């Protein structure tokens, strides 16, 4: 079968999405062209608009349409707290907790020595400049509890501590509502190692 070249380039283009292999890309392309033409037009317009309008917030590095994002400009947020996360999705999760009213910094990645991703690739100098604004008192590191997330946390804490900023790391352990019987052994082992005295 001869696939028209425009269809082929559409399939090829869709493969740039995470988790989309050749089969899924083909399915999506046929669907868009056969059943979803209005949707395809909307997708094309939205992509073009996003590409033209979106950039990184100069303060928190997340995506925004203006120089500084709305959250960073808000007077309701506590500017003395800065929470560092790996991705914008992580930031959304933190927001859903309704437990945090400070500001954010989104790394857009993590330190991963075996993939060659270090502080240079992550532009950590920009975070450093952000923390040195004289207003930030405490930096909360909320990177993942994977080896790469821990490596990133270590990097950040070393970098910031030497500059006199107070640094904390979110806690880990048994999840809320978790029953020990059903918690995985690794989590429980770490919760035991990181136990703390009971206040009161």
């Amino acid at each position, binding site marked *: 079968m001869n696939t028209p070249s425009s269809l082929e380039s559409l399939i090829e283009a869709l493969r740039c999405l995470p988790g989309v292999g050749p089969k899924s890309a083909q399915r999506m392309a046929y669907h868009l062209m056969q059943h979803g033409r209005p949707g395809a037009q909307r997708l094309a317009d939205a992509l073009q608009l996003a590409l033209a309008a979106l950039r990184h917030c100069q303060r928190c590095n997340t995506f925004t349409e203006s120089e500084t994002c709305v959250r960073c400009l808000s007077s309701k947020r506590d500017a003395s707290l800065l929470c560092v996360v790996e991705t914008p999705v992580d930031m959304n999760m933190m927001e859903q907790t309704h437990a945090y009213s400070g500001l954010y910094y989104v790394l857009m990645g993590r330190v991963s*020595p075996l993939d060659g991703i270090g502080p240079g690739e992550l532009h950590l100098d920009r975070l450093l400049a952000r923390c040195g604004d004289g207003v930030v008192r405490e930096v909360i590191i909320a990177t993942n509890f994977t080896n790469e997330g821990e490596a990133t946390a270590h990097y950040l804490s*070393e970098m910031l501590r030497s500059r006199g900023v107070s640094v904390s790391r979110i806690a880990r352990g048994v999840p809320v509502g978790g029953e020990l019987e059903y918690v995985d052994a690794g989590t429980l082992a770490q919760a035991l190692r990181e136990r703390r005295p009971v206040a009161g």
Partner: protein
Amino acid sequence: MNQRHHVDGQPAFVLHAYPYSETSLIVDVFSQDHGRVALLARGARRPRSVLRGVLQAFQPLELGWAGRGEVQTLIRAEWQGGQPLLAGKSLFCGYYLNELLIHLLPREDAHARLFSVYAATLRRFADGAQESDLRCFERALLQELGYGLLLETDAAGLAVEENAHYAYEIEHGPVRLPGPGRSARSVSGRTLIDLAREDFSDPRSLAEAKQLMRTLISHYTGGRSLSSRRIFRELHEL
């Protein structure tokens, strides 16, 4: 190589994992009796996959896999425990060990002795990694690969003398010099003896052993620069 394998209950560590297709991972594994193997972990990147938290580097696991050819299929992975998560400097040292194994260890070559050295080194890392741990691991690794170092006798077959100076010739051993050498391969007799005994109480021995090992490893990795070393160095430059 091409026969069908079926392995179960195999002690192993993950060295590195790479995303593969839509929801899977290819895991580079160092196992006790089968050496380094590449395993396909199907569905390991799905949000609720039980493998998600298990296939982490530096944790003792018990794995089962089957298949033929270069990449076999992971069937079972169980966390064994007993190894605290690495943090801080130890974590970066752990990455360094993994990078050495990935670059130097050929696939499917059993190295049970090196496996136990690796596990013991990680356990020591849990209390804070020491430079001497790295040197001992590097020495064990070269030894296992058949590049064993000549430390107590020189290239001419004479016993190494503590106060003499040597240049370490790769594949030959220490060659005695009339005085202190200036290259990265020049070492004192004391350092060679200390390295043989794995005694690093003398800071000079430790510093010279580091230089020597770096030269040797760079030779055997074909001059490849190690990114874990670069990224660890950048940490100190911040």
